[in-house]
């Protein structure tokens, strides 16, 4: 079963597969709930029910990601057109999967260019993007960089988690 950070990973992978060059994710951790919003500039053909299992524009045998999101959020999800492209939003109970923030974000920043993630907790927030990590030689795909990535996340986490 996917936890909330797995669902964020699915959503980002979905955006990348849709050809997005820019992916903006926001994770809001407030009031015991997790609200996730992913906006991208990829090209989708919106179907009548994009959350239906097997509903896909990407070929045979695909299309499990959004169905998983819907199942894991008891239907609290929607896919709409935003200013820049497509917006996926979903909400579920906080399962603690963003407590180990470095582990939740490492797969995303290791792999996807053009990604930015905002973590918001109550009234505090920070935004981290891939360019920031590249400038600090901290894209976590090899020894040395993984440690720098963790140090950056730990520092930012301290600012909003207290």
């Amino acid at each position: 079963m996917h936890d909330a950070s797995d669902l964020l990973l699915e959503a980002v992978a979905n955006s990348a597969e849709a050809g997005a060059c820019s992916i903006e994710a926001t994770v809001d951790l407030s009031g015991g709930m997790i609200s996730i919003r992913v906006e991208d500039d990829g090209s989708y053909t919106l179907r009548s029910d994009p959350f239906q299992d097997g509903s896909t524009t990407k070929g045979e045998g695909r299309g499990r990601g959004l169905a998983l999101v819907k199942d894991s959020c008891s239907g609290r999800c929607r896919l709409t057109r935003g200013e820049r492209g497509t917006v996926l939003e979903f909400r579920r109970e906080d399962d603690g999967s963003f407590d180990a923030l470095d582990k939740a974000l490492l797969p995303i920043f290791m792999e996807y260019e053009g990604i930015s993630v905002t973590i918001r907790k109550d009234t505090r927030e920070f935004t981290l993007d891939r360019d920031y990590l590249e400038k600090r030689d901290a894209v976590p795909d090899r020894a040395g960089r993984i440690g720098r990535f963790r140090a950056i996340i730990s520092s930012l986490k301290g600012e909003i988690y207290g």
Partner: protein
Amino acid sequence: MAKLSLSDLHAIREREEKNLRKRDIHGRNVHVVVAMGTSGINAGAKLVLNTLAEEVEKAGLDNVIITQTGSAAPNPEPVVEVFEPKKGLVVYGSVDADTARRIVSEHLADGRILEDKRIELVEKEQ
């Protein structure tokens, strides 16, 4: 020679940075790939990826680069592929955190293949 504009300079810098990154990847002689499709994540691939990263960092294996790929179904996931020039491609199936630690300490650091976890990659039927 015509003067370069600021945007030309930015374009050149971006191109060279991309080239530098490509050379950097090619300079690493061991490539570890984790299958992170929906089925892989469901089977625990994220924990495996994080464990590999942590252990590679701890061991200071500067010649290793870790990347991700999509679903490896119908193979037993989580699936980890290790490619190095001497031993070629080795694929591991049903990898958990303990196996990930062994991949780093035995295969990547010592050059010993984990025969008990090795699988032959089966291609998905079209």
